[in-house]
C-alpha cells in the first residue's frame, strides 16, 4: 500500500475513533484515550531506534520531558513578556505569543530532536550498550537541570492554565485528543514508510550486524543519528501538549518511570520488527493500565508491566506480532 493511501486510511481510522468517543459522550474516555494514544506515539518513536536499529533508549522520559518543558518555557515566556523584554519589542512579541499549540508541538519536536542528535553524536560511535547507559544517565541529568531551572518552575512545578474551550471542537481535552491522534497518524505513517524504504533496510542491517553493514557501505553513524534524532523528535512532540493536559507539571511527572518502562515494554510486547507491534502494544498495555489504575493501585499496574516485559523478552522475543506470525506459519505447513 502506498504511503499517501496508508496515511489517509490511518486518518480515517483516527476520525472514526474520535467520533465514536464523541458519541459515547463521557469526557473521561477522552482523558484515558489521550494517554493511550500518547503511548502509541512514544512506543512507535522508541521502536524506530530500538526495534529497527537495535539501539536501546532507556531515557524516553527525557525526550518526552524535553518536549513538555519546552512548552512550559514558551508558555512562561509568553506570560512574562512585559517583564523580560524592552518596551520597544514587547508589542511585537505579544502579537506572536502565546504560540498556538500546534507550533509548540513542532518546537518541542525540534528541541528533542536536537538533544537526541547531540547525545547520539557523543555516544553512538561506541557500542550499543554504552548508548543505552548514556540514555539512562541523560534522563537523570536533564531532570537535574529542570529541577534547578526556576523559570520553568523548578522542583515546585509549573501551573499551566488550560483554555476553557476551543472553537469548533468544544472541550479542550477533546482538542488535545485530536492533536494526539494526528501525531499518532504521523508517527505510524513515518514508521511504516521507513520500514519499506532504503532507510529501513539500512536500519535493519545495522541491527543485524553493524560491522557487516559498514563493510557493505552503510554509513552506520549517519543512519543511527537519523534514527536517534527522529525518535527523540517524535517523543518530544508527544510531550509538548502534556503541560496543558495535566495542568500542573512537576519534574517527577514529566520524567516519570512509567514513560521509560512503557516506551520499552509496549514495543517489545507488541513486537519490534514492524510498525504494528508498538501500536498493538500501546493499545493493549495502555488500556490495561488505564483499567488497572482505576481498579488496583498504579504501583501494582507498573509491576505487571515490568513482569510482562521480562516474560515476553524471555519467552516471546518477537512480541505478539511474532507469535501471530509463528502461529500462521505453523498453520500453513501441511
Amino acid at each position, binding site marked *: 500500500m502506498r504511503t499517501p493511501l496508508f496515511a489517509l486510511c490511518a486518518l480515517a481510522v483516527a476520525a472514526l475513533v474520535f467520533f465514536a468517543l464523541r458519541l459515547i459522550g463521557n469526557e473521561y474516555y477522552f482523558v484515558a484515550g489521550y494517554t493511550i494514544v500518547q503511548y502509541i506515539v512514544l512506543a512507535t518513536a522508541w521502536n524506530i531506534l*530500538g526495534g529497527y536499529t*537495535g539501539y*536501546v533508549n*532507556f531515557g524516553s522520559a527525557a525526550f518526552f520531558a524535553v518536549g513538555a518543558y519546552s512548552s512550559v518555557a514558551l508558555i512562561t515566556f509568553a506570560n512574562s513578556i512585559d517583564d523580560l523584554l524592552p518596551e520597544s519589542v514587547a508589542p511585537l512579541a505579544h502579537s506572536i505569543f502565546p504560540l498556538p499549540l500546534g507550533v509548540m508541538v513542532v518546537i518541542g519536536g525540534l528541541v528533542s530532536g536536537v538533544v537526541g542528535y547531540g547525545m547520539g553524536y*557523543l*555516544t553512538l560511535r*561506541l557500542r*550499543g*550498550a*554504552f548508548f*543505552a*547507559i*548514556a540514555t*539512562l*544517565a*541523560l534522563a*537523570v*541529568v536533564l*531532570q*537535574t*537541570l529542570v*529541577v*534547578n531551572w526556576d523559570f520553568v518552575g523548578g522542583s515546585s512545578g509549573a501551573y499551566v492554565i488550560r483554555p476553557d474551550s476551543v472553537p469548533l471542537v468544544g472541550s479542550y481535552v477533546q482538542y488535545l485528543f485530536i492533536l494526539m491522534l494526528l501525531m499518532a497518524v504521523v508517527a505510524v505513517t513515518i514508521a511504516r514508510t521507513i520500514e519499506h524504504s532504503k532507510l529501513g533496510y539500512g536500519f535493519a542491517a545495522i*541491527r543485524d550486524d553493524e560491522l557487516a553493514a559498514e563493510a557493505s557501505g552503510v554509513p552506520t553513524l549517519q543512519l543511527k543519528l537519523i534514527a536517534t534524532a527522529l525518535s527523540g523528535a517524535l517523543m518530544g512532540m508527544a510531550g509538548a501538549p502534556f503541560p496543558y493536559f495535566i495542568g500542573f507539571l512537576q519534574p517527577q511527572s514529566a520524567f516519570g*518511570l512509567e514513560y521509560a*518502562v512503557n516506551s*520499552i*515494554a509496549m514495543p*517489545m510486547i507488541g513486537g*519490534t520488527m514492524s510498525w504494528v507491534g508498538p501500536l498493538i502494544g500501546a493499545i493493549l498495555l495502555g488500556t490495561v493500565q488505564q483499567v488497572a489504575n482505576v481498579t488496583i*493501585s498504579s*504501583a*501494582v499496574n*507498573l*509491576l505487571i*508491566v*515490568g*513482569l510482562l*516485559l*521480562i516474560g515476553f*523478552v*524471555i519467552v516471546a*522475543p518477537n512480541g505478539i506480532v511474532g507469535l501471530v506470525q509463528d502461529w500462521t506459519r505453523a498453520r500453513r505447513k501441511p
Partner: protein
Amino acid sequence: MDFPLLINAIIAGLLIGGFYAAVTAGISISFGMLDIVNIAHPAFIILGSYIAYIVNIKLGIDPIIVSIIMLPAFYLLGDVIYRVYYQSFEKRGAESLRGLAFFFGVLFVTEVVLILTFGVDYRYVEAPYIGPALSFSFVDLPLRILVPFIVSLVLFGALQLLVSRTFTGRAIMAVSQDQLALRLMAVDPIRIKRIAFGCSIATAAVAGALLIIIQPVEPSVGREYIGRVFAICVLGGLGSLPGTLIAALLIGVVESITSTFYGPSWAPAVSFGFLLLTLAFRPSGLLGR
C-alpha cells in the same frame, strides 16, 4: 577560596569515592569482565539496603554484619539470574537489546516491589557509628562515611586478591579475554561466568548495607547510581579493578566539590558529564585494557 571548606569537601569526596568503588565493583565484574550490561545492579544494592534495614530494625544487628551474613544468599541470586540470562539470551546469541531489556525489567520490577512493600518513605538504620565524627583541627571525618570507606577498601582488596591470586579469579580475568583457551584448559567458561556474576551480585549486599549507613534510602535511589556506576566503570577502564578505584575516588571528589560550592542538586550531573566526556574522548578509560 575557603580552604577548610575545600579540604573537607575533598576528604568527604575521597571517602564517598571509596564507597562508590564498592558500589561499582560489581559492575566492574559483570560489565567490565563478562560483558553483561547488568543495569539492574543498583536495584540489588537497594535490595541489600532494605534487607539490612529490616534486620537492623527488627533484631538490632549491625547492618554490615547483616550484609556479610547475606553474602551467600546474594551470591545465589546472582547465580540464578545468570542462569536465566544465559539460557534466554547469551546461549541463543540474541541481540544485546533483549538482554538489556531483561535487566531493565528486573531493575524496574525490583524497584516497584520495594515500593509496594516498604512505601516511598526514606528508611535509615541505627548503628553506633552513625552520628559521631572524628575531628582533626578543621577536618571533619563523619564516622558514618569513614566506616563504609574502610569496609569498601577491604571489599576491594578482597576482590583484587581473588582476581589475582586464586585460580578461579584468574579464570574470570581469562574468560573475558579468551574463552577458547579456557576450554582447552578443561575449564568451563560458563561456570566461571556464573561464579563471577554471583560474586558481582554478592558485592551488592555489602554495598547496600554501606549505602544505608551513609544516607537514608528509598526505592528510587538506585536509579541515581546507574549513571554514576557506569561512569566510574568506563572512566576507570572496563575490567580494571585498580582503575575503577581511582575513577571512583576522582568522581567522588569532583561531585563533592560541586555539591559544596554549587549546591547538591547539581551532583547527579557530574557523573554524567564525566561519562559523556570519557565516551567521547577516551573510551578505553584511564587504565583501560
